[in-house]
Structure formats: structure tokens, C-alpha cells
């Protein structure tokens, strides 16, 4: 028997914490393949932009369409209105941003990459700290590419940003 109501309260807190952790790990495992899909899109599109710029838009469109579809199908949070609202707001902001700063594909690419990083941080604040670290890793990759390797920005965004997403997805999948 429990000795006191404090003992019972502590046990209930432990139960609540274990349930939260179980949910968090389940969401991580489900989010892993989604991040890997987006990472592959980033890698393919940016590497194409670096070496065959005329083909890059087609790769982006195909990759984004496939990744969005995959995200919708496999997202554990698809019923979570707060997450959907956050991602929709970021998507609308990205489209407006691209429309307003058209002409410089490098700036567009870097801005959208930073926006995606920020979305990961914000979603991570609400769902699990690992996404915060992934968002920060992607942001660091983008900033490094912009300031340190400007001549190879696309390649850096692909390998650094996309690679960070892919590896992070692999890390989450094993959670």
C-alpha cells in the first residue's frame, strides 16, 4: 500500500511523465522517415541547382510534391490543429517571401531554408526537444554556407542542410 497521498501523487506524476515520453518517442520514430524524405529532396534539388541550374526547379517541384504527400500520409500529428496551423503559416509566408524577393535564387533558397529551420525549432518546442536541435543544425548549416562557402552555396545547402535533415531523420527513426 502507499504510505500517503504524496506517494500516490508522485506515482501519478511518474505515470504522466512516462506516457508523455512514450508519445514523444513514438512521434520521433514516425517523424524520422518524413525528415529523411525532405532531406533527400533538399540534397537532390540543391545539387542539381549547383551543377544543372536549368533543371533545379523541376527537381524542387517533384521533390516537394512527393515530400508533402509523404508527410500528409505518414504524419502522426496530422490531427493536431496547432501543428497544421504552424506549418500552413510558414508555407504561406515562404510563398509570399519568394514572390517578394524574386530574382535572386540564392537569397530565396537560403531564406526558405532558414524558415524551414525555424519551423523545426517552433514545432520542436511544442512536441519534442530533438526537433529543436535539428532546426538549429539546419540553421547553422545554412549560415555557414552563406558566409563561408558562398561559391558553393547550393552544394552546401544540399549536403549540409539536406544531409542534416536526412541524418536527423535517421536518428529519430531509431528513437
Amino acid at each position: 500500500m502507499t504510505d500517503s497521498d504524496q506517494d500516490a501523487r508522485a506515482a501519478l506524476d511518474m505515470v504522466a511523465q512516462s506516457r508523455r515520453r512514450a508519445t514523444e518517442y513514438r512521434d520521433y520514430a514516425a517523424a524520422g522517415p518524413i525528415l529523411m524524405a525532405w532531406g533527400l529532396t533538399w540534397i537532390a534539388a540543391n545539387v542539381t541547382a549547383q551543377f544543372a541550374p536549368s533543371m533545379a526547379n523541376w527537381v524542387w517541384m517533384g521533390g516537394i510534391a512527393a515530400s508533402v504527400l509523404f508527410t500528409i500520409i505518414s504524419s502522426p500529428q496530422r490531427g493536431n490543429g496547432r501543428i497544421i496551423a504552424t506549418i500552413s503559416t510558414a508555407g504561406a509566408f515562404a510563398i509570399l517571401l519568394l514572390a517578394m524577393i524574386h530574382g535572386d535564387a540564392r537569397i530565396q533558397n537560403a531564406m526558405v531554408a532558414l524558415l524551414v529551420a525555424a519551423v523545426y525549432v517552433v514545432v520542436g518546442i511544442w512536441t519534442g526537444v530533438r526537433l529543436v536541435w535539428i532546426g538549429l543544425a539546419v540553421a547553422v548549416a545554412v549560415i555557414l554556407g552563406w558566409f563561408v562557402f558562398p561559391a558553393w552555396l547550393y552544394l552546401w545547402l544540399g549536403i549540409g542542410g539536406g544531409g542534416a535533415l536526412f541524418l536527423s531523420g535517421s536518428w529519430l527513426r531509431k528513437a
Partner: protein
Amino acid sequence: MSAAFNETIHQSTRLKLMAALDAEPGGGALDFARLKAISEATDGNLGAHLNTLDSAGFVVIAKEPIGKRTRTLVAISSAGRAAFRAHIAYLQEMVDAVSNR
């Protein structure tokens, strides 16, 4: 549901394990690595607690071969779910009784 204290479940690591397994939708199984991360137990400690829960009929343990290794999958049994929820109800009644005084 009737509230009932359960000595086997009340031990802290086993309480964490049962909470995690009960939270799995559709009574799905969790693997050993995930349970270890959630419970923060060592391999040996976790194995011993899972055996205790298995002996009590509260969990079902399955071994799944993956190449040369074996993956251990654990799911809550219907008896385990009933005992866990009765135990939670007991704890909640204790807390509520003090709150309502």
C-alpha cells in the same frame, strides 16, 4: 472500474513500463530499446522487471529475429491493462480523498 492497489505494478520502474505500454495505441508492442529509454533502466534491471511483469501475466513478451540478432517486443496484456487502470484509479482516489477534505 474498481480501484485496487497492485504491489507488482507500484514499483517505480514497473509503473513506468506499464504506463508506457498502456499509452501505446491499440495495445501495440514496444521494443526493448524504447522501453529502456522511457524507463531509464539498465539492460539487466529492465529485463528483470519485464520478467516480473510477464510472470504476473501483465505483459506479453515476443522475440523477433532480425538477422543474427533478436528484437524483444513487449505488449500489455488485457489483464495487465485492467490491473494497471485499477491501480491508477486507486492512486487517484487517494489523492482526491485528501483534496476533498
